[in-house]
């Protein structure tokens, strides 16, 4: 098997200590490690020197509900726990249950999934393979092999939870050397495959705060080749507020079509204030399809994945309306 590079392993027991260790040169955060370890084995992080594990920091896991219905999810809560917890809205349980495989969900965490590195089939390959191809932009080379024209990395946001959390208007609490801050999940991401998280490397995502869903309807659908294991090649999350026949508010977010979750405001605007009949849903689905441009950097063809966007959006919206 591929072997890990020689690394130091730090297992701090407090958040402050973890932030301090994470501030050191070459430190990387492990919050489950299900994606980090294979990436390290493929030598995707040549700068890595120390792995800072959050496993021994207490108080970072668990799911609780405030009096007003606000859901608080500790960053180290396993994805399996999220998928199973009755207090968690269905849409998040669907998204969590769609992550990887049962074994990986037992190990992977909510914080880890939200921060999971972007992926690309020119990057997430063994180092020997990348050398044979000549390293791409993100691997330290001069060019992105997906779209060589621009010096931009198109690696794909591959979190199942991210689009669902964005659609739910969730926020994350981040702890850093200068204290804590809370930011909408939507603002955690940047559409840049090289640097997709809008947070300092020594800031730690400690909690996800999800406002109550109330009477709104929400769902998540995932496209992947197999019913398990595979990363999303398309994720669709939607939240609809429906009053009588009329949609009074809508959130529609796509995952795995860019380096960050993509909120399709054009479709949201179209849906809002309308009765959601088949024509309106179809129109919204087509707007979603036009909003994104998947690249040839993951499983199946970019053309196929683009074609699937309206199909998956339409199916999800129809399911939510029929629910």
């Amino acid at each position, binding site marked *: 098997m*591929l*072997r890990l590079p020689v690394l130091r392993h730090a297992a701090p027991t407090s958040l402050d200590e973890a932030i301090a260790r994470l501030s050191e040169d070459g430190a990387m955060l492990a919050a489950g490690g299900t994606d980090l370890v294979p990436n390290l084995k493929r030598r995707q992080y040549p700068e890595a020197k120390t792995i800072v594990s959050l496993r021994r920091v207490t108080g970072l896991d668990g799911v609780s509900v405030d009096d007003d219905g606000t859901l608080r999810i500790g960053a180290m809560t396993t994805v399996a726990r999220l998928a199973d917890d009755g207090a968690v809205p269905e849409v998040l349980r669907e998204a969590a249950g769609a992550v990887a495989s049962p074994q990986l969900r037992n190990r992977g965490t909510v914080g880890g999934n939200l921060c999971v590195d972007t992926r690309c*089939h020119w990057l997430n*390959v063994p180092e020997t*393979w990348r050398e044979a*191809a000549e390293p791409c932009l993100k691997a330290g080379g001069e060019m992105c092999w997906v779209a060589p024209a621009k010096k931009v990395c198109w690696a794909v946001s591959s979190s199942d939870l991210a689009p669902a959390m964005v659609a739910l208007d969730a926020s994350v609490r981040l702890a850093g050397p200068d204290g804590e801050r809370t930011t909408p999940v939507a603002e955690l991401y940047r559409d840049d495959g090289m640097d997709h998280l809008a947070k300092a490397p020594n800031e730690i995502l400690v909690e996800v705060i999800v406002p109550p869903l109330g009477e709104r309807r929400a769902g998540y659908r995932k496209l992947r080749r*197999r019913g398990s294991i595979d990363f999303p090649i398309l994720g669709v999350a939607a939240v609809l507020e429906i009053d009588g026949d009329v949609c009074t508010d809508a959130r529609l977010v796509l995952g795995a079509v860019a380096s960050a979750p993509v909120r399709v405001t054009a479709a949201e605007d179209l849906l809002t204030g309308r009765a959601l009949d088949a024509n309106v849903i179809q129109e919204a689905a087509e707007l979603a399809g036009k909003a994104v441009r998947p690249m040839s950097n993951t499983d199946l*063809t970019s053309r*196929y994945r683009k074609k699937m966007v309206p*199909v998956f959006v339409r199916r999800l919206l129809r399911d939510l309306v029929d629910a």
Partner: protein
Amino acid sequence: MRIDPHHGVVGRAAPRTDALAQASGGLVYVDDLSYPSMLHGKILRSPQAHARIVSIDTSAAAALPGVHAVLTGADLPIAYGLLPVAQDEHALAIDKVRQVGDAVAAVAADDPDIAQRAVELIDVVYEPLPVVATMNDAVEIVDEPIHGDGPRNNRHREVSLDFGDVDAGFDRADHIREDVFFYQGNNHAALEPHGAVALVEDDGRLHLWSATQVPHYLHRIVAKVLEIPEHRIRVTANPTGGGFGAKTDVFAHELVAAKLALATGRPVKLILTREEVFYAHRGRHPVLMWIRTGFTGAGEITAMWFRTYVDGGAYGSYGPASLLYTGQLQTTTYRIPAYRFQGVRFFTNKPACGPKRGHGTPQPRFGLEVHLDKAAEDLGLDPVTIRERNLVHPFSTTVNHLRITSCGLADCIERVVEASEFRAKHRNLPPNRGIGLAVGAYMSGAGLPIYFNDMPQSEVLLKVDRGGLVTVYSMAADCGQGSTTMLATVVGEALGLDAADLAVVTADTDLTPIDLGSYSSRVTFMAGNAALEAAMKLADLILTAVADELELDTDDVRLGRGVVLAGDREIPWPDAVRMAEARWGLLTAAGSYKPPKGIRGDYKGAGVGPSPAYSYSACVAEVDCDPETGFVAVEQVWLAHDIGRAINPLLVRGQIEGSVHMALGETLMEEQAFRGALHDGPSLLDYKIPTALEMPPVEAILVESIDPEGPFGAKEVGQGPLLPVMPAVANAVHDALGIRVDEIPLRPDKILAALRDRERDGQGRYGPTDLPAYEFRPPLPVDPPPELR
């Protein structure tokens, strides 16, 4: 002589004799081996697909503390190859590299991390050469042939044969149909990667353990390349964590581990990474096919012309045989009165292809069975009828001189059609649901050995100790198919003993007599027959001794279950054994098996295809397709297999279910695809194998045709049941959606492309249309066998 089982050992659905060890982690795989002061080997592989090696500087690697040896091509200069006609490989590249992943240099070091650092310190300067990534490239890029002394168009092998009067056959046809198909290559993806451990024993002899299906061939090639006499080498094949043909060739890492052990005097372990397994490959050849068949109005085949274009990758490997297999077995299921087969295998700068379960036959089987389905539609026949009208007859000879003996294909079709309610469902299922039928046949062992010789292909030795334990010695390598259990069951049945009470020593060149290896589905038929012969001789020794001792007529002495029945007495087996040892001395018996003569023709190429018996399968698959996403869900598979006789029905069903899983992977998603000459994703995340969630229920139906020559009538099951699954699913997709994807795998994007084609007033087809610009030489006429003239 046909021998029927009567002790209830054969035919019992018993767990494998090593089931507990397998399930509890007790089986010793090659990576489980560890020896004091063992070193770890690592191979430096080429990042270039095609390049001249200008220089190799190993000085920094050799100087790294903890490194004990560094090898380059100069240390292992002798060319080898599994087939005598394909001696085109070197353990470590000499002068040039021909694929990404070619072995270039190797080290042995104190631990795997030092070994890894050491290979990174080796400096190789390459001069890139034009890369041949496709078969079209092979024809067009002629400046630098991949094999320097090879033909400029990178043609590796060609075959062009005419059996009977093909032109006359087409002349009398009422309907002629032509189709083009492509079958993408794929990897075996055995969970256990390849690996080897080597050391020099106290007596100075080299001992090599390997995850191999072919210890005998490995033994010969190690002797050749290392220039050590065979008697100074011992090869042990560990149980493998899956073979499927992946481990039937000899690989660089085996030769390198052996050489490093000799160079350092210390044990050396070398286990491949998954990426290296994809580069070692020897998997399914990508095959482009063109088929032309003439039919009478009633659907009877009058002539067939089959062309195959085979992408071989960088080396010969089993390729000359693989190429012939793309044409030779078409005649084993259908009566084809005149047959033209033309095939060509090209070298390309990609990992070498070779034998994977079904070896060269799943690709043409896919093409043939879909082609027949289309012809049935042309002629207004149903898929069952067109097949039944052309079925090969039991105990007949094919136009290409293959001897057919027992054949349960008609039964297989009937059983599977009935179980699936095919006739009621075909063309009548709700929208997007469909059902498809296909058949197949496979060899119970290749009629000829890999290297020409007149010796037996399999030999078994039995030895009995004074406690009554019978030990079976055979070189048969258990690659998961259950050959060890089969040997115990056959000998147990013959002697009236429980399979679990025998000891079986296998796959060790010091300890066991020859078996050529676990390939071509040969072990049950050949090692089984050798074991049966040995057991019958042993039974005779024991019965004679008991009869003499008790002064009985030999007719009054026979074997019972764990006893010898002598007149009205029951002699416990151990007592009978002691009487026999007193009478004869050490109790041993040997058996050998060699396929009968006269089962093949005498034309060039006739050596590939003959077998002492063929297994037959029929498959029905039912699918539910999503016309918006192109996803195909296989809802159920019915598979009837003519096993001859089921020595162990549980293992037979296991092989059928495993075959269906592997076949569905090939049908729907598995592909060894490339970006240029770079593997598209050498990991088990990117190389998609169906999970348990994609696996439908399988109804396995066992048809027992009782072969006259098989051990207790048995034939093969390891490969045959795979063959009809791919075309059955493709035919079911056609029934569901009315489209044809003439290409494997049936990826969702191809399904949508075919649907798009139909919307645009097309035929609703996705698939290849063009063939490489390659001119076959005129076919060599071969007279049909006398009874068909």
